[in-house]
């Protein structure tokens, strides 16, 4: 059946992409929350935060992009949960198809939907005065890291999508992920935080990823790139393993 993995995944991805394009409100709500945060931080709090000579919007955009992804993937969990609840997941599993294509379709759709949201947020940031001196290679690196981060978080989202017992449960897991950038270097320099908080902020995945994106946007060499990639790759592997365990529990 593996011969059909690509064609079946493509057919099923076409289906879930239609769900996204026919409910554009999900993309808009995904983008609106980070945009509102961006407006608030830049025009309300930003003046009081000392980021040296760097314009505050340039400083905080990486964190906003990660928040965009964290809120976007909750819709992936939601869509997967609804497929299980409606019974269409079982219909697909009882058909002669490459079964894992059902999951891959949701993962690929998540990458596409989050890319659209990220482009919208980036567009608003440009309007608000965000400027980058990054070259083509640095932009590609930014895109690659965001894609890898989205992939890792998407596989995390698959776990509640498969195992939640209510719609609320399927979406609620993303709140801590959305919150994580606030306790990192994303909005304020970590040096201002008290001891234990600072220790957490400097040793959680968001900080090296934010620092890397910030360096890439500024055209500087990215010192934290290795740590950022290790976090993304590690999260991806662990999430994938647990998602597969949840998947095995769901199907015979």
């Amino acid at each position, binding site marked *: *059946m593996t011969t*059909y993995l690509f*064609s*079946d995944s493509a*057919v*099923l991805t076409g*289906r879930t992409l*239609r*769900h996204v394009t*026919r*409910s554009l409100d999900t993309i808009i709500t995904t983008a609106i929350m980070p945009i509102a945060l961006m407006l608030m931080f830049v025009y309300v709090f930003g003046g009081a935060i000392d980021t040296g000579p760097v314009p505050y919007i340039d400083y905080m955009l990486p964190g906003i992009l990660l928040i965009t992804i964290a809120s976007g993937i909750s819709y992936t969990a939601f869509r997967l949960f609804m497929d299980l609840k*409606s*019974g*269409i997941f*079982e*219909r*697909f*599993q*009882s*058909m*002669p*198809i490459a079964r894992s294509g059902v999951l891959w379709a949701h993962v690929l759709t998540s990458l596409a939907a989050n890319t659209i949201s990220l482009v919208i947020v980036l567009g608003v940031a440009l309007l608000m005065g965000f400027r980058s001196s990054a070259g083509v290679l640095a932009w590609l690196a930014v895109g690659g890291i965001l894609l890898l981060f989205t992939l890792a978080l998407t596989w995390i989202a698959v776990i509640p999508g498969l195992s939640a017992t209510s719609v609320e449960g399927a979406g609620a897991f993303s709140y801590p992920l959305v919150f994580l950038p606030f306790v990192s270097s994303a909005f304020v320099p970590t040096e201002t935080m008290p001891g234990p908080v600072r220790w957490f902020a400097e040793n959680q995945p968001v900080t090296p990823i934010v620092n890397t994106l910030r360096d890439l946007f500024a055209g500087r060499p990215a010192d934290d790139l290795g740590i950022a990639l290790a976090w993304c790759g590690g999260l991806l592997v662990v999430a994938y393993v647990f998602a597969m365990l949840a998947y095995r529990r769901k*199907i*015979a």
Partner: protein
Amino acid sequence: MTADHPTIRVRGLTKAYGKLEVLRGVDFDVAPGSIFALLGSNGAGKTTVVRILATLLKADAGTAAVGGFDVATQPARVRESISLTGQFAAVDEILSGRENLVLVARLRHLRNPGAVADGLLDRFSLTDAGARRVSTYSGGMRRRLDIAMSLAGSPPVIFLDEPTAGLDPSARLEVWQTVRGFARQGTTVLLTTQYLDEAEQLADRIAILHQGRIVVNGTLGELKQLLPPARIEYVQKQPTLEEIFLATIAGGREQE
């Protein structure tokens, strides 16, 4: 295939969810091209049997084979010959009726999925509604689409898990006609239901699943002989509410 080679063969099937023993040794055969009704009250384990046969659930013990293929060791071959229509119409609400049919036709790797979809829309009187989103469909239309989706690729074995649950009487009659049509074309049907009249109307054989076992298995005639002989009583035949309902709406049937 003859009676010695049943299309569906179930032997000693057991399944427990934790301490709850749902199936405690289920045996039955379904002959090729026949309609077999599995009758039981809510929670009797009918859906569990269907899920095991459809390779969605593993049995704790016992064997089950569909079309000669074991559901545990050759699930991919089983899935090629079956189609499942679940208790809750598993259709994609966001897609149109036609898109749903094209989707399953493509997943079954059929040539010309568009033509397959149009043919099924026509056969199930859904052509006019084909371009509309399924979320606008009535319960009866949804179930018709659900069954139509099961028929893409003409699988030789169809599982219908409570196909008329939640339908109004006229939609139920439509489903019955469709199921009778399957048998005429040589399709083997395993039907679960909690409506006694449904089993009586449709099934060649009826098995009653109770407390995890098949307690009775036979044709309607055989089952009737198990009961005390019929007594002759004279009663005035009042029209049932169902007959009144159907007579009142006759003629104006479903063009939603």
